[in-house]
């Protein structure tokens, strides 16, 4: 029982810290790209200021929404982000839930992200959020398969589906070298599953905010935190599976885990500010015609390397 409590506190703390750091990165890169001055104090306070503005917004509601599903959406997304963080190992043998099937559990959590995003789009009974929800289905279903395939290709050298074993198998050579197409395909599909710019069709500004249009107040704050949380969870597992997790020369293991996770978060945040939003037709065609064969080639290359 105390172990469960401790695990919950650990995951909660990691999630909060990750969300805050991702938001600070977002503000910093945004200020740099937009060339607005802010200074370090301004950058650190911007996410808190944005959160406060959103939190005290007036709650708007629509006509005949599906209230229960609407309330469920951010809670479910936040829960999935927490599940993603539980399978990340921070040291040899130390993880909240280093189950023997960590990769499949993580894949299931990532696939289920489609559900709360669609619910967020469906529940307000409004046109643009519904379109955003449909875009999320198209985007998510197209990117799920390459996403799972590159994770499996990374699990091949370890001969195990546990993420701790995958990290342990990278002691000599990181998976980013051994499964060369893995990290690029992962960095293309993970933000698509987290509807993160440049794949922010579901929440895009051409839909007036898409799924986030009718959300307001603490609900919107929870939703945005959950999105950052999913991003951090995907980066953490990507760092463990492709960049070697706790392996590194001078610093202790957990510090390396945090550094590599933050590196991937930084890459994704920079992509958000520098890459334009990809059109849905292009993305779907690209996912099925380019990313899926690339993921399959990744599996073949990794297998051939091992033989």
């Amino acid at each position, binding site marked *: 029982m105390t172990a469960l409590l401790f695990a919950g506190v650990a995951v909660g703390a990691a999630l909060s810290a990750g969300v805050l750091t991702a938001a600070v990165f977002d503000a910093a890169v945004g200020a740099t790209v937009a060339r607005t001055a802010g200074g370090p104090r301004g950058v650190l306070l911007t996410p808190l200021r944005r959160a406060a503005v959103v939190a005290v917004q007036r709650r708007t509601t629509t006509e005949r929404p599906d209230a229960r*599903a609407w309330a469920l959406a951010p809670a479910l997304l936040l829960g999935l982000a927490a599940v993603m963080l539980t399978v990340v190992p921070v040291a040899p043998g130390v993880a909240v839930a280093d189950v023997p*099937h960590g990769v*499949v559990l993580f894949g299931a959590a990532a696939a289920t992200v489609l559900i709360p995003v669609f619910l967020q789009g469906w529940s307000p009974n409004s046109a643009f959020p519904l379109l955003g929800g449909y875009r999320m*289905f198209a985007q998510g279903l197209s990117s799920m398969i390459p996403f799972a395939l590159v994770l499996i290709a990374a699990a091949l050298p370890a001969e195990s589906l546990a993420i701790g074993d995958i990290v342990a198998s990278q002691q000599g050579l990181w998976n980013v070298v051994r499964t060369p197409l893995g990290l690029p395909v992962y960095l293309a599909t993970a933000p698509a599953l987290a509807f993160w710019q440049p794949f922010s069709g579901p929440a895009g500004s051409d839909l007036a905010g898409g799924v986030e249009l009718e959300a307001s107040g603490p609900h919107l704050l929870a939703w945005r935190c959950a999105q950052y949380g999913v991003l951090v969870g995907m980066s953490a597992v990507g760092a463990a599976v492709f960049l070697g997790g706790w392996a590194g020369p001078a610093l202790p293991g957990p510090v390396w885990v945090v550094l590599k996770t933050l590196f991937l978060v930084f890459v994704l945040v920079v992509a958000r500010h520098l890459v334009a939003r990809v059109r849905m037709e292009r993305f779907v065609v690209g996912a099925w015609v380019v990313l899926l064969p690339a993921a399959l080639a990744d599996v073949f290359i990794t297998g051939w390397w091992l033989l």
Partner: protein
Amino acid sequence: MTSWAVDSAFAVFAVAAVVTGFLVFRTDSMVRASFWLLASFVNVGLILVLLNARFLGFSVVLMMAGEMSVMAIFMVMLMMNPAGLNPMTMVHQHRASVAAGVTAFLALAGVGIVVDFPDDPARQDPAQVTAELGVEELGDSMLVFQTAGAALLATMIGGIAVTSRRGRYGTADEGSVPPPLDPPDAESAL
């Protein structure tokens, strides 16, 4: 996990699976119906995890998240009342179906309880179960695995062929006709 915890978790998941399965046909909102079905599948997946078939359990959750998304899309596309804003009951032969359902349940449950199945519990730990499954799939049951793969490929091709709007002779909506046997010349009306 202790046996008490496993049993109570099983009880919760089992009741939830059956109740949400029933709610699929009771709710007016069609999107809720597909997500009740997803809830039923997730509960069955969690029971499979409790049974130490963890790879199967998590795979069920993964697959069904995608499948229920597709089901929700079709619901909204084809149902006249997708949001359930008006109550409606669209059933036919209701009493016969209830009788058939109850009969099926009693027959199968009766067989399950009465028949003396061999008592040979699986004792491996979950990692070993998955390792054995992997070796089996690519070893002794390779033919089954390949057949499943071929069946899925046939499904993909068949699904696209059945629903595709473009055929060899143009789009399906336009009443396209195949070219005539003799080539068209000046007098030919085709």
